[in-house]
Protein backbone atom coordinates (compact mmCIF):
# COMPACT_ATOMS: atom_id res chain seq x y z
CA UNK A 1 0.00 0.00 0.00
CA UNK A 2 0.87 3.64 -0.46
CA UNK A 3 3.11 3.94 -3.47
CA UNK A 4 5.14 6.71 -5.05
CA UNK A 5 4.08 8.20 -8.37
CA UNK A 6 6.60 9.62 -10.77
CA UNK A 7 5.72 11.43 -13.98
CA UNK A 8 8.44 11.97 -16.57
CA UNK A 9 7.82 14.48 -19.37
CA UNK A 10 4.15 13.55 -19.56
CA UNK A 11 2.08 15.07 -22.38
CA UNK A 12 -1.67 14.40 -22.41
CA UNK A 13 -3.72 14.58 -25.60
CA UNK A 14 -7.39 14.51 -26.47
CA UNK A 15 -7.15 13.57 -30.12
CA UNK A 16 -5.06 16.29 -31.72
CA UNK A 17 -5.51 18.68 -28.82
CA UNK A 18 -2.63 18.74 -26.37
CA UNK A 19 -4.26 19.35 -22.99
CA UNK A 20 -1.23 19.07 -20.72
CA UNK A 21 2.39 19.50 -21.67
CA UNK A 22 5.62 18.17 -20.28
CA UNK A 23 4.78 17.47 -16.66
CA UNK A 24 7.50 15.92 -14.54
CA UNK A 25 6.84 15.44 -10.85
CA UNK A 26 7.16 13.06 -7.94
CA UNK A 27 4.19 12.38 -5.67
CA UNK A 28 5.40 11.06 -2.33
CA UNK A 29 3.65 8.21 -0.51
CA UNK A 30 1.91 8.75 2.83
CA UNK A 31 1.48 12.42 2.09
CA UNK A 32 -1.14 14.73 0.61
CA UNK A 33 -0.30 16.45 -2.66
CA UNK A 34 -2.58 19.25 -3.82
CA UNK A 35 -2.99 20.46 -7.41
CA UNK A 36 -4.10 24.08 -7.72
CA UNK A 37 -4.53 26.41 -10.67
CA UNK A 38 -7.14 28.29 -12.69
CA UNK A 39 -9.95 26.48 -14.53
CA UNK A 40 -8.85 24.68 -17.66
CA UNK A 41 -5.19 24.52 -16.60
CA UNK A 42 -5.11 20.74 -16.94
CA UNK A 43 -4.88 19.80 -13.27
CA UNK A 44 -7.98 17.59 -13.41
CA UNK A 45 -6.85 16.07 -16.69
CA UNK A 46 -3.47 15.29 -15.17
CA UNK A 47 -5.14 13.79 -12.09
CA UNK A 48 -7.35 11.60 -14.26
CA UNK A 49 -4.37 10.46 -16.29
CA UNK A 50 -2.89 9.06 -13.05
CA UNK A 51 -5.42 6.21 -13.08
CA UNK A 52 -6.10 6.35 -16.81
CA UNK A 53 -9.64 7.65 -16.24
CA UNK A 54 -9.15 10.34 -18.88
CA UNK A 55 -9.20 7.50 -21.44
CA UNK A 56 -12.97 7.34 -20.94
CA UNK A 57 -13.02 10.10 -23.57
CA UNK A 58 -12.38 8.54 -26.99
CA UNK A 59 -9.10 9.59 -28.56
CA UNK A 60 -7.34 10.40 -25.29
CA UNK A 61 -3.74 9.24 -24.91
CA UNK A 62 -0.48 10.23 -23.26
CA UNK A 63 3.11 10.57 -24.29
CA UNK A 64 5.85 10.13 -21.70
CA UNK A 65 6.21 7.95 -18.66
CA UNK A 66 4.12 7.55 -15.54
CA UNK A 67 5.61 5.26 -12.92
CA UNK A 68 3.92 3.74 -9.90
CA UNK A 69 6.79 2.57 -7.68
CA UNK A 70 8.84 2.20 -10.85
CA UNK A 71 6.20 0.35 -12.88
CA UNK A 72 5.04 2.16 -16.02
CA UNK A 73 1.24 2.60 -15.89
CA UNK A 74 1.19 3.17 -19.65
CA UNK A 75 3.58 0.35 -20.49
CA UNK A 76 2.72 -2.14 -23.22
CA UNK A 77 0.10 -4.64 -22.13
CA UNK A 78 -0.93 -2.69 -19.04
CA UNK A 79 -4.70 -2.97 -18.54
CA UNK A 80 -6.31 0.29 -17.38
CA UNK A 81 -8.82 -1.82 -15.44
CA UNK A 82 -6.02 -3.13 -13.24
CA UNK A 83 -4.52 0.34 -12.86
CA UNK A 84 -7.85 1.64 -11.57
CA UNK A 85 -8.14 -1.20 -9.10
CA UNK A 86 -4.90 0.01 -7.49
CA UNK A 87 -5.51 3.72 -7.78
CA UNK A 88 -8.87 4.77 -6.35
CA UNK A 89 -10.74 7.92 -7.25
CA UNK A 90 -13.27 10.24 -5.61
CA UNK A 91 -15.18 12.62 -7.85
CA UNK A 92 -16.31 16.21 -7.73
CA UNK A 93 -19.92 15.29 -7.16
CA UNK A 94 -20.78 12.40 -4.85
CA UNK A 95 -21.76 9.46 -7.05
CA UNK A 96 -22.94 6.49 -5.00
CA UNK A 97 -24.77 3.92 -7.11
CA UNK A 98 -28.44 4.85 -6.64
CA UNK A 99 -29.70 1.32 -7.07
CA UNK A 100 -27.45 -0.09 -4.35
CA UNK A 101 -27.77 0.03 -0.60
CA UNK A 102 -25.12 1.71 1.53
CA UNK A 103 -23.39 -1.58 2.18
CA UNK A 104 -23.58 -2.71 -1.44
CA UNK A 105 -22.01 0.58 -2.45
CA UNK A 106 -19.05 0.07 -0.14
CA UNK A 107 -18.54 -3.48 -1.39
CA UNK A 108 -19.14 -2.68 -5.08
CA UNK A 109 -15.46 -2.63 -5.95
CA UNK A 110 -14.69 -5.85 -4.10
CA UNK A 111 -17.43 -7.66 -5.96
CA UNK A 112 -15.63 -6.86 -9.21
CA UNK A 113 -12.59 -8.77 -8.06
CA UNK A 114 -14.80 -11.84 -7.79
CA UNK A 115 -13.26 -12.71 -4.49
CA UNK A 116 -15.18 -15.44 -2.75
CA UNK A 117 -15.69 -13.88 0.64
CA UNK A 118 -18.02 -15.03 3.38
CA UNK A 119 -20.80 -12.75 4.57
CA UNK A 120 -18.90 -12.20 7.81
CA UNK A 121 -15.76 -11.07 5.97
CA UNK A 122 -17.75 -8.75 3.75
CA UNK A 123 -19.52 -7.21 6.74
CA UNK A 124 -16.17 -6.72 8.41
CA UNK A 125 -14.67 -5.08 5.30
CA UNK A 126 -17.68 -2.81 4.94
CA UNK A 127 -17.47 -1.75 8.58
CA UNK A 128 -13.73 -1.13 8.36
CA UNK A 129 -14.09 0.99 5.22
CA UNK A 130 -17.01 2.96 6.67
CA UNK A 131 -15.10 3.54 9.90
CA UNK A 132 -12.11 4.59 7.80
CA UNK A 133 -14.33 7.16 6.09
CA UNK A 134 -15.77 8.39 9.44
CA UNK A 135 -19.22 7.33 8.37
CA UNK A 136 -19.85 4.18 10.40
CA UNK A 137 -21.57 5.78 13.36
CA UNK A 138 -23.98 7.66 11.11
CA UNK A 139 -25.06 4.75 8.93
CA UNK A 140 -24.56 1.59 10.99
CA UNK A 141 -28.30 1.23 11.58
CA UNK A 142 -29.32 1.70 7.96
CA UNK A 143 -26.77 -0.20 5.93
CA UNK A 144 -29.47 -1.72 3.75
CA UNK A 145 -31.09 1.58 2.79
CA UNK A 146 -30.23 3.29 -0.50
CA UNK A 147 -27.05 5.37 -0.51
CA UNK A 148 -28.85 8.15 -2.31
CA UNK A 149 -30.83 8.90 0.86
CA UNK A 150 -27.75 10.31 2.62
CA UNK A 151 -26.76 13.97 2.71
CA UNK A 152 -24.24 15.25 0.17
CA UNK A 153 -21.37 15.14 2.64
CA UNK A 154 -22.30 11.66 3.80
CA UNK A 155 -22.57 10.51 0.19
CA UNK A 156 -19.08 11.80 -0.50
CA UNK A 157 -17.71 9.96 2.54
CA UNK A 158 -19.56 6.88 1.28
CA UNK A 159 -17.69 7.26 -2.00
CA UNK A 160 -14.43 7.53 -0.08
CA UNK A 161 -15.36 4.38 1.85
CA UNK A 162 -16.09 2.66 -1.46
CA UNK A 163 -12.67 3.66 -2.75
CA UNK A 164 -10.70 2.64 0.34
CA UNK A 165 -12.53 -0.67 0.66
CA UNK A 166 -10.42 -1.70 -2.33
CA UNK A 167 -7.28 -0.91 -0.31
CA UNK A 168 -5.77 1.08 -3.16
CA UNK A 169 -2.16 2.24 -3.33
CA UNK A 170 -3.17 5.78 -4.18
CA UNK A 171 -6.33 7.81 -3.64
CA UNK A 172 -7.13 10.53 -6.17
CA UNK A 173 -9.64 13.23 -5.28
CA UNK A 174 -11.02 15.55 -7.93
CA UNK A 175 -12.37 18.60 -6.07
CA UNK A 176 -14.06 16.34 -3.51
CA UNK A 177 -15.58 19.19 -1.50
CA UNK A 178 -16.73 21.56 -4.22
CA UNK A 179 -20.35 20.39 -3.98
CA UNK A 180 -20.42 20.32 -0.16
CA UNK A 181 -21.28 22.74 2.62
CA UNK A 182 -18.53 24.02 4.99
CA UNK A 183 -19.26 21.51 7.77
CA UNK A 184 -19.19 18.52 5.42
CA UNK A 185 -16.05 19.98 3.86
CA UNK A 186 -14.39 20.09 7.27
CA UNK A 187 -15.34 16.45 7.88
CA UNK A 188 -13.73 15.43 4.58
CA UNK A 189 -10.60 17.49 5.29
CA UNK A 190 -10.20 15.83 8.70
CA UNK A 191 -10.66 12.49 7.00
CA UNK A 192 -7.94 13.29 4.45
CA UNK A 193 -5.55 14.00 7.31
CA UNK A 194 -6.30 10.58 8.81
CA UNK A 195 -6.11 8.75 5.49
CA UNK A 196 -2.65 10.01 4.64
CA UNK A 197 -1.18 7.71 7.28
CA UNK A 198 -1.96 4.82 4.94
CA UNK A 199 -2.41 6.21 1.46
CA UNK A 200 -0.78 8.37 -1.14
CA UNK A 201 -3.34 11.12 -1.62
CA UNK A 202 -3.60 13.52 -4.53
CA UNK A 203 -6.27 16.20 -4.39
CA UNK A 204 -7.36 18.77 -6.95
CA UNK A 205 -8.91 21.84 -5.37
CA UNK A 206 -10.05 25.30 -6.31
CA UNK A 207 -10.01 26.30 -2.69
CA UNK A 208 -6.62 27.76 -1.77
CA UNK A 209 -7.28 27.58 1.97
CA UNK A 210 -8.11 23.93 1.57
CA UNK A 211 -4.85 23.23 -0.23
CA UNK A 212 -2.99 25.09 2.53
CA UNK A 213 -4.86 23.21 5.27
CA UNK A 214 -4.66 19.64 4.03
CA UNK A 215 -1.63 19.22 1.80
CA UNK A 216 2.06 18.65 2.41
CA UNK A 217 3.08 19.45 -1.13
CA UNK A 218 1.39 21.77 -3.60
CA UNK A 219 1.69 21.83 -7.37
CA UNK A 220 0.60 24.91 -9.30
CA UNK A 221 -0.64 24.44 -12.88
CA UNK A 222 -1.26 27.26 -15.30
CA UNK A 223 -2.27 27.87 -18.87
CA UNK A 224 -0.87 30.48 -21.22
CA UNK A 225 -4.21 31.06 -22.97
CA UNK A 226 -7.27 29.33 -24.40
CA UNK A 227 -6.31 26.43 -26.65
CA UNK A 228 -2.83 26.26 -25.14
CA UNK A 229 -1.74 23.20 -23.17
CA UNK A 230 -1.65 23.40 -19.37
CA UNK A 231 1.73 23.24 -17.70
CA UNK A 232 3.15 22.53 -14.29
CA UNK A 233 4.57 25.85 -13.16
CA UNK A 234 5.89 25.08 -9.74
CA UNK A 235 5.81 22.30 -7.16
CA UNK A 236 7.13 22.59 -3.64
CA UNK A 237 6.22 22.11 -0.01
CA UNK A 238 2.87 23.69 0.72
CA UNK A 239 4.47 25.99 3.26
CA UNK A 240 6.93 27.32 0.68
CA UNK A 241 4.31 27.73 -2.06
CA UNK A 242 2.01 29.73 0.19
CA UNK A 243 4.74 31.89 1.73
CA UNK A 244 7.60 32.40 -0.70
CA UNK A 245 6.82 30.84 -4.11
CA UNK A 246 9.71 31.07 -6.52
CA UNK A 247 7.62 31.90 -9.60
CA UNK A 248 5.77 35.20 -9.96
CA UNK A 249 2.64 33.56 -11.51
CA UNK A 250 2.23 31.31 -8.48
CA UNK A 251 2.36 34.27 -6.14
CA UNK A 252 -0.16 36.19 -8.26
CA UNK A 253 -2.53 33.22 -8.24
CA UNK A 254 -2.43 32.42 -4.54
CA UNK A 255 -2.74 36.05 -3.55
CA UNK A 256 -5.82 36.28 -5.76
CA UNK A 257 -4.44 38.65 -8.36
CA UNK A 258 -5.74 36.41 -11.16
CA UNK A 259 -7.58 33.18 -11.77
Amino acid at each position, binding site marked *: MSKRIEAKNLDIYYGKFKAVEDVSMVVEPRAVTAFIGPSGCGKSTFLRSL*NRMHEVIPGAYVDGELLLDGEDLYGPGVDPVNV*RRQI*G*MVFQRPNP*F*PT*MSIKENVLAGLKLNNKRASKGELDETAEKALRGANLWEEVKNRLDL*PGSGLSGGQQQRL*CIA*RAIAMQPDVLLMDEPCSALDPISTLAIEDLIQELKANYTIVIVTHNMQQAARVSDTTAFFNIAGTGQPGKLIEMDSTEKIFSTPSVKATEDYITGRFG
Partner: protein
Amino acid sequence: MSLTTERPAPAESSLIPSKPRVGDKVFKGLSTGSGILIFVILGAVATFLVALAFPALVSSPETLESQGFGEFWSWVIPLAFGTVWSSFWALVFAVPVAIGIALFISHYAPRKLAAPLGYVIDLLAAVPSVVYGLWGGIALASALQPLHAWLATYLGWIPLFSGQPSGTGRTILTTSLVLAVMILPIITSLCREVFLQTPKLHEEAALALGATRWEMVQMAVFPFARAGIVSAVMLGLGRALGETMAVAMVLSGANVIKIEMLNQQNPISIAARIALDFPESSGLAVNQLIAAGLVLFVITLAVNMVARWIVSRRAAFSGAN
Protein backbone atom coordinates in the same frame (compact mmCIF):
# COMPACT_ATOMS: atom_id res chain seq x y z
CA MET B 1 -60.85 59.80 3.85
CA SER B 2 -59.57 56.26 3.73
CA LEU B 3 -56.08 55.09 2.95
CA THR B 4 -57.10 53.53 -0.32
CA THR B 5 -58.24 56.77 -1.81
CA GLU B 6 -55.02 58.38 -0.73
CA ARG B 7 -53.00 55.70 -2.49
CA PRO B 8 -54.79 54.76 -5.71
CA ALA B 9 -53.11 52.03 -7.72
CA PRO B 10 -51.23 53.59 -10.58
CA ALA B 11 -52.91 52.87 -13.86
CA GLU B 12 -49.66 51.78 -15.47
CA SER B 13 -48.44 49.44 -12.72
CA SER B 14 -45.87 47.00 -14.03
CA LEU B 15 -47.01 44.40 -11.49
CA ILE B 16 -50.61 44.21 -12.72
CA PRO B 17 -50.74 42.68 -16.17
CA SER B 18 -52.68 44.90 -18.53
CA LYS B 19 -54.01 41.98 -20.56
CA PRO B 20 -54.54 38.35 -19.62
CA ARG B 21 -51.87 35.87 -20.73
CA VAL B 22 -53.69 34.22 -23.61
CA GLY B 23 -50.96 31.74 -24.49
CA ASP B 24 -50.95 30.34 -20.96
CA LYS B 25 -54.69 29.85 -20.93
CA VAL B 26 -54.81 28.25 -24.35
CA PHE B 27 -52.03 25.85 -23.48
CA LYS B 28 -53.58 24.92 -20.16
CA GLY B 29 -56.90 24.28 -21.90
CA LEU B 30 -55.28 22.16 -24.59
CA SER B 31 -53.27 20.00 -22.21
CA THR B 32 -56.15 19.50 -19.80
CA GLY B 33 -58.44 18.70 -22.71
CA SER B 34 -56.01 16.12 -24.09
CA GLY B 35 -55.76 14.50 -20.69
CA ILE B 36 -59.51 14.24 -20.39
CA LEU B 37 -59.83 13.01 -23.98
CA ILE B 38 -57.73 9.92 -23.15
CA PHE B 39 -60.18 8.98 -20.41
CA VAL B 40 -63.16 9.62 -22.67
CA ILE B 41 -61.74 7.43 -25.45
CA LEU B 42 -60.76 4.64 -23.08
CA GLY B 43 -64.18 4.83 -21.42
CA ALA B 44 -65.93 4.74 -24.79
CA VAL B 45 -63.92 1.68 -25.89
CA ALA B 46 -64.62 -0.12 -22.61
CA THR B 47 -68.31 0.74 -22.78
CA PHE B 48 -68.54 -0.47 -26.37
CA LEU B 49 -66.79 -3.74 -25.51
CA VAL B 50 -68.89 -4.45 -22.43
CA ALA B 51 -72.19 -3.46 -24.03
CA LEU B 52 -71.71 -5.53 -27.17
CA ALA B 53 -70.08 -8.44 -25.37
CA PHE B 54 -72.95 -8.67 -22.89
CA PRO B 55 -75.42 -10.63 -25.07
CA ALA B 56 -72.83 -13.33 -25.67
CA LEU B 57 -71.80 -13.47 -22.04
CA VAL B 58 -75.36 -14.05 -20.80
CA SER B 59 -76.45 -16.45 -23.55
CA SER B 60 -76.87 -20.11 -22.71
CA PRO B 61 -74.25 -22.54 -24.08
CA GLU B 62 -76.95 -24.06 -26.31
CA THR B 63 -77.76 -20.74 -27.97
CA LEU B 64 -74.07 -20.04 -28.52
CA GLU B 65 -73.65 -23.53 -29.90
CA SER B 66 -76.29 -22.91 -32.59
CA GLN B 67 -75.73 -19.21 -33.34
CA GLY B 68 -72.09 -18.61 -32.31
CA PHE B 69 -68.89 -20.53 -31.77
CA GLY B 70 -69.93 -22.74 -28.87
CA GLU B 71 -69.79 -22.39 -25.09
CA PHE B 72 -68.01 -19.11 -24.33
CA TRP B 73 -65.28 -20.00 -21.83
CA SER B 74 -64.23 -23.26 -23.42
CA TRP B 75 -63.97 -21.31 -26.67
CA VAL B 76 -62.15 -18.22 -25.42
CA ILE B 77 -59.68 -19.79 -22.97
CA PRO B 78 -57.72 -21.62 -25.69
CA LEU B 79 -57.62 -18.35 -27.64
CA ALA B 80 -56.39 -16.45 -24.58
CA PHE B 81 -53.79 -19.15 -24.10
CA GLY B 82 -52.69 -18.89 -27.73
CA THR B 83 -52.40 -15.11 -27.38
CA VAL B 84 -50.28 -15.23 -24.24
CA TRP B 85 -48.26 -18.25 -25.34
CA SER B 86 -47.17 -16.82 -28.72
CA SER B 87 -46.43 -13.42 -27.16
CA PHE B 88 -44.45 -15.01 -24.34
CA TRP B 89 -42.15 -16.76 -26.80
CA ALA B 90 -41.89 -13.62 -28.90
CA LEU B 91 -40.57 -11.84 -25.81
CA VAL B 92 -38.18 -14.66 -24.98
CA PHE B 93 -36.71 -14.40 -28.48
CA ALA B 94 -36.79 -10.61 -28.85
CA VAL B 95 -35.79 -9.16 -25.47
CA PRO B 96 -32.21 -10.48 -25.19
CA VAL B 97 -31.51 -9.54 -28.81
CA ALA B 98 -33.08 -6.10 -28.39
CA ILE B 99 -31.11 -5.33 -25.23
CA GLY B 100 -27.95 -6.60 -26.90
CA ILE B 101 -28.43 -4.38 -29.97
CA ALA B 102 -29.37 -1.38 -27.83
CA LEU B 103 -26.29 -1.85 -25.68
CA PHE B 104 -24.10 -2.28 -28.73
CA ILE B 105 -25.41 0.98 -30.19
CA SER B 106 -25.19 2.93 -26.93
CA HIS B 107 -21.95 1.66 -25.40
CA TYR B 108 -19.91 -0.49 -27.75
CA ALA B 109 -20.26 0.52 -31.38
CA PRO B 110 -18.02 3.22 -32.81
CA ARG B 111 -20.10 6.33 -33.50
CA LYS B 112 -19.87 5.85 -37.27
CA LEU B 113 -21.59 2.49 -37.01
CA ALA B 114 -24.03 3.29 -34.22
CA ALA B 115 -26.10 5.88 -36.09
CA PRO B 116 -26.79 3.85 -39.27
CA LEU B 117 -27.59 0.78 -37.19
CA GLY B 118 -30.10 2.82 -35.20
CA TYR B 119 -31.80 3.92 -38.45
CA VAL B 120 -32.02 0.36 -39.74
CA ILE B 121 -33.66 -0.78 -36.51
CA ASP B 122 -36.17 2.06 -36.66
CA LEU B 123 -36.88 1.13 -40.28
CA LEU B 124 -37.94 -2.35 -39.15
CA ALA B 125 -40.71 -0.69 -37.14
CA ALA B 126 -42.01 0.97 -40.31
CA VAL B 127 -42.70 -2.33 -42.11
CA PRO B 128 -46.48 -2.94 -42.14
CA SER B 129 -47.57 -6.01 -40.20
CA VAL B 130 -49.28 -7.53 -43.24
CA VAL B 131 -45.86 -7.64 -44.90
CA TYR B 132 -44.48 -9.46 -41.88
CA GLY B 133 -47.42 -11.84 -42.18
CA LEU B 134 -46.68 -12.56 -45.85
CA TRP B 135 -43.01 -13.00 -45.13
CA GLY B 136 -43.69 -15.26 -42.14
CA GLY B 137 -46.26 -17.41 -43.91
CA ILE B 138 -44.46 -17.79 -47.23
CA ALA B 139 -40.73 -17.37 -46.71
CA LEU B 140 -39.92 -17.91 -43.06
CA ALA B 141 -42.23 -20.89 -42.49
CA SER B 142 -40.72 -23.01 -45.26
CA ALA B 143 -37.22 -21.85 -44.37
CA LEU B 144 -37.76 -22.96 -40.80
CA GLN B 145 -39.27 -26.34 -41.68
CA PRO B 146 -35.85 -28.13 -41.52
CA LEU B 147 -35.31 -26.57 -38.09
CA HIS B 148 -38.67 -27.97 -37.00
CA ALA B 149 -37.65 -31.42 -38.18
CA TRP B 150 -34.26 -31.15 -36.50
CA LEU B 151 -35.71 -29.99 -33.17
CA ALA B 152 -38.32 -32.76 -33.24
CA THR B 153 -35.71 -35.40 -34.02
CA TYR B 154 -33.00 -34.44 -31.55
CA LEU B 155 -34.83 -32.49 -28.83
CA GLY B 156 -38.16 -34.29 -29.09
CA TRP B 157 -37.82 -35.49 -25.49
CA ILE B 158 -38.52 -31.89 -24.39
CA PRO B 159 -42.33 -31.61 -24.22
CA LEU B 160 -42.22 -28.32 -26.17
CA PHE B 161 -40.74 -30.07 -29.19
CA SER B 162 -42.56 -33.40 -29.01
CA GLY B 163 -44.97 -34.82 -31.57
CA GLN B 164 -44.94 -34.95 -35.35
CA PRO B 165 -43.31 -31.76 -36.74
CA SER B 166 -45.39 -29.70 -39.15
CA GLY B 167 -44.59 -30.21 -42.82
CA THR B 168 -45.25 -26.56 -43.68
CA GLY B 169 -43.48 -24.82 -40.80
CA ARG B 170 -46.61 -22.79 -40.11
CA THR B 171 -46.46 -23.29 -36.37
CA ILE B 172 -46.55 -21.35 -33.13
CA LEU B 173 -42.72 -21.33 -33.22
CA THR B 174 -42.66 -19.56 -36.58
CA THR B 175 -45.41 -17.19 -35.42
CA SER B 176 -43.48 -16.28 -32.28
CA LEU B 177 -40.36 -15.60 -34.34
CA VAL B 178 -42.30 -13.30 -36.68
CA LEU B 179 -43.76 -11.51 -33.65
CA ALA B 180 -40.26 -11.27 -32.15
CA VAL B 181 -38.96 -9.52 -35.27
CA MET B 182 -41.95 -7.18 -35.16
CA ILE B 183 -41.47 -6.11 -31.55
CA LEU B 184 -37.68 -5.95 -31.78
CA PRO B 185 -37.45 -2.35 -33.05
CA ILE B 186 -39.62 -0.75 -30.38
CA ILE B 187 -37.84 -2.53 -27.55
CA THR B 188 -34.44 -1.73 -29.07
CA SER B 189 -35.18 1.95 -29.63
CA LEU B 190 -36.53 2.54 -26.16
CA CYS B 191 -33.72 0.61 -24.46
CA ARG B 192 -31.13 2.50 -26.47
CA GLU B 193 -32.60 5.83 -25.41
CA VAL B 194 -32.64 4.77 -21.75
CA PHE B 195 -29.09 3.38 -21.89
CA LEU B 196 -27.84 6.64 -23.35
CA GLN B 197 -29.38 8.51 -20.41
CA THR B 198 -27.20 6.73 -17.86
CA PRO B 199 -25.46 9.48 -15.87
CA LYS B 200 -21.77 9.83 -16.75
CA LEU B 201 -21.13 10.10 -13.01
CA HIS B 202 -22.33 6.57 -12.36
CA GLU B 203 -20.44 5.14 -15.31
CA GLU B 204 -17.26 6.81 -14.13
CA ALA B 205 -17.85 5.63 -10.57
CA ALA B 206 -17.90 2.05 -11.83
CA LEU B 207 -14.90 2.48 -14.12
CA ALA B 208 -12.86 4.14 -11.36
CA LEU B 209 -13.42 1.08 -9.20
CA GLY B 210 -11.76 -0.98 -11.88
CA ALA B 211 -14.84 -2.24 -13.67
CA THR B 212 -14.46 -3.57 -17.19
CA ARG B 213 -16.88 -2.26 -19.80
CA TRP B 214 -19.31 -5.14 -19.22
CA GLU B 215 -19.05 -4.80 -15.43
CA MET B 216 -19.70 -1.07 -15.77
CA VAL B 217 -22.82 -1.89 -17.78
CA GLN B 218 -24.00 -4.24 -15.04
CA MET B 219 -23.22 -1.82 -12.21
CA ALA B 220 -24.33 1.47 -13.69
CA VAL B 221 -26.32 1.06 -16.92
CA PHE B 222 -28.70 -1.84 -16.24
CA PRO B 223 -29.78 -0.78 -12.73
CA PHE B 224 -30.41 2.73 -13.97
CA ALA B 225 -32.33 1.47 -17.00
CA ARG B 226 -34.38 -1.19 -15.22
CA ALA B 227 -37.67 0.69 -15.21
CA GLY B 228 -37.13 1.77 -18.80
CA ILE B 229 -36.40 -1.78 -19.93
CA VAL B 230 -39.58 -3.03 -18.27
CA SER B 231 -41.60 -0.30 -19.99
CA ALA B 232 -40.02 -1.11 -23.34
CA VAL B 233 -40.74 -4.81 -22.93
CA MET B 234 -44.34 -4.04 -21.98
CA LEU B 235 -44.84 -1.90 -25.09
CA GLY B 236 -43.41 -4.74 -27.16
CA LEU B 237 -45.65 -7.24 -25.38
CA GLY B 238 -48.63 -5.00 -26.00
CA ARG B 239 -47.92 -5.09 -29.70
CA ALA B 240 -47.41 -8.85 -29.70
CA LEU B 241 -50.62 -9.53 -27.75
CA GLY B 242 -52.72 -7.42 -30.08
CA GLU B 243 -51.05 -8.44 -33.33
CA THR B 244 -53.60 -9.61 -35.85
CA MET B 245 -52.43 -9.90 -39.43
CA ALA B 246 -49.05 -11.49 -38.89
CA VAL B 247 -50.54 -14.24 -36.74
CA ALA B 248 -53.59 -14.77 -38.94
CA MET B 249 -51.45 -15.14 -42.06
CA VAL B 250 -49.05 -17.67 -40.56
CA LEU B 251 -51.41 -19.84 -38.51
CA SER B 252 -54.62 -21.48 -39.50
CA GLY B 253 -55.21 -22.23 -35.85
CA ALA B 254 -57.34 -24.64 -33.92
CA ASN B 255 -59.24 -24.28 -30.70
CA VAL B 256 -56.71 -26.12 -28.56
CA ILE B 257 -54.44 -25.57 -25.58
CA LYS B 258 -51.14 -27.13 -26.57
CA ILE B 259 -47.65 -26.31 -25.43
CA GLU B 260 -46.08 -28.25 -28.29
CA MET B 261 -44.60 -25.70 -30.66
CA LEU B 262 -43.84 -27.71 -33.79
CA ASN B 263 -47.09 -29.48 -34.66
CA GLN B 264 -49.60 -29.08 -37.44
CA GLN B 265 -52.28 -28.09 -34.93
CA ASN B 266 -51.65 -24.79 -33.12
CA PRO B 267 -53.54 -22.48 -30.78
CA ILE B 268 -54.27 -19.10 -32.35
CA SER B 269 -54.48 -15.65 -30.77
CA ILE B 270 -57.65 -13.72 -29.94
CA ALA B 271 -56.94 -10.88 -32.36
CA ALA B 272 -56.22 -13.25 -35.25
CA ARG B 273 -59.35 -15.31 -34.49
CA ILE B 274 -61.48 -12.17 -34.57
CA ALA B 275 -59.97 -11.05 -37.86
CA LEU B 276 -60.43 -14.46 -39.47
CA ASP B 277 -64.01 -15.03 -38.31
CA PHE B 278 -65.48 -11.54 -38.34
CA PRO B 279 -66.25 -11.23 -42.08
CA GLU B 280 -68.51 -14.30 -42.03
CA SER B 281 -70.20 -13.67 -38.70
CA SER B 282 -73.54 -12.15 -37.85
CA GLY B 283 -75.83 -11.77 -34.89
CA LEU B 284 -74.70 -13.43 -31.70
CA ALA B 285 -71.45 -14.61 -33.31
CA VAL B 286 -70.36 -10.98 -33.60
CA ASN B 287 -71.18 -10.43 -29.93
CA GLN B 288 -69.11 -13.46 -29.03
CA LEU B 289 -66.13 -12.16 -31.03
CA ILE B 290 -66.43 -8.82 -29.26
CA ALA B 291 -66.52 -10.61 -25.92
CA ALA B 292 -63.21 -12.22 -26.92
CA GLY B 293 -61.96 -8.70 -27.62
CA LEU B 294 -62.98 -7.75 -24.10
CA VAL B 295 -60.92 -10.64 -22.75
CA LEU B 296 -57.91 -9.39 -24.74
CA PHE B 297 -58.49 -5.91 -23.32
CA VAL B 298 -58.46 -7.32 -19.78
CA ILE B 299 -55.30 -9.37 -20.44
CA THR B 300 -53.47 -6.32 -21.76
CA LEU B 301 -54.61 -4.23 -18.80
CA ALA B 302 -53.47 -6.89 -16.34
CA VAL B 303 -50.07 -7.17 -18.00
CA ASN B 304 -49.58 -3.42 -17.79
CA MET B 305 -50.56 -3.32 -14.14
CA VAL B 306 -48.10 -6.09 -13.30
CA ALA B 307 -45.40 -4.14 -15.12
CA ARG B 308 -46.19 -0.98 -13.15
CA TRP B 309 -46.02 -2.97 -9.96
CA ILE B 310 -42.62 -4.43 -10.90
CA VAL B 311 -41.26 -0.96 -11.61
CA SER B 312 -42.58 0.58 -8.39
CA ARG B 313 -41.48 -2.22 -6.09
CA ARG B 314 -38.02 -0.78 -5.54
CA ALA B 315 -38.80 2.85 -6.22
CA ALA B 316 -36.40 4.07 -3.50
CA PHE B 317 -33.54 2.40 -5.36
CA SER B 318 -34.62 3.55 -8.80
CA GLY B 319 -32.02 6.25 -9.28
CA ALA B 320 -34.69 8.86 -9.76
CA ASN B 321 -33.65 10.57 -6.55
